[in-house]
C-alpha cells in the first residue's frame, strides 16, 4: 500500500519544492505543496504540475489526492495567519 511518505517522496522527486506535507490513509491523500515554480502558474497549471510529477502513479497507485498548492510567499502568509490564531 502507498503511504503518505511515499507520496511525499514521489512529489519531491518529480518537481522542485520548498515544502511538502502529505497525510492520508493509503487511498485518499491530502497534500500541501509549496514551490517557487508555482509563481507563474494559475491554479489549474499548479495542480497539473503536481500530477505530472506523479505521472503514472496518479493512475495506478493513488486513488485520490486533494491538494493545496502555494508559492513560498503564500505559504509564509498562511503560516503567519496560523500562528496568530486566525
Amino acid at each position: 500500500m502507498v503511504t503518505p511518505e511515499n507520496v511525499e517522496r514521489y512529489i519531491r522527486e518529480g518537481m522542485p519544492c520548498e515544502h511538502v506535507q502529505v497525510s492520508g490513509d493509503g487511498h485518499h491523500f491530502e497534500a500541501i505543496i509549496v514551490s517557487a515554480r508555482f509563481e507563474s502558474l494559475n491554479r489549474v497549471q499548479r495542480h497539473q504540475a503536481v500530477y505530472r510529477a506523479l505521472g503514472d502513479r496518479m493512475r495506478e497507485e493513488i486513488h485520490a489526492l486533494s491538494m493545496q498548492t502555494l508559492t513560498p510567499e503564500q505559504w509564509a502568509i498562511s503560516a503567519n495567519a496560523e500562528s496568530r490564531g486566525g
Partner: protein
Amino acid sequence: MDIKDRIDTELTRSPVVLFMKGTPTFPQCGFSSRAVQILQACGVQDYHTINVLEDQHIREGIKQYSNWPTIPQLYVNGEFVGGSDIMMEMYESGELQQVLGG
C-alpha cells in the same frame, strides 16, 4: 463521432457542465458530492452533469481532454475550471460565484 467531439457536444448543453461520478442526487464519490454541494451553495440551479461511471470512454476521454487525471471536473462556458479542490478554493475566495454568475 470521436470522443473529443462527444465531449465538445456535452459542453454545449449548458453553460455549466460537471463531469462526475454518480448523479447530483446520488453522487458515488465524496469529491463529486462536494462539487455538487459547492454548485448548490453558489445558487446554480441549471447545470448539466455527465456520470462518467456509465461511460468508460468518456471517463478516460475527459482526462485526456483537460490533461487532468481526476474526476470531478467543472467546465464553465466550455472552459475547464478545475476539480473539487480548486472549486472549493475559488468558492471560499468568492471567485467561483463570479465565474458562475458572469
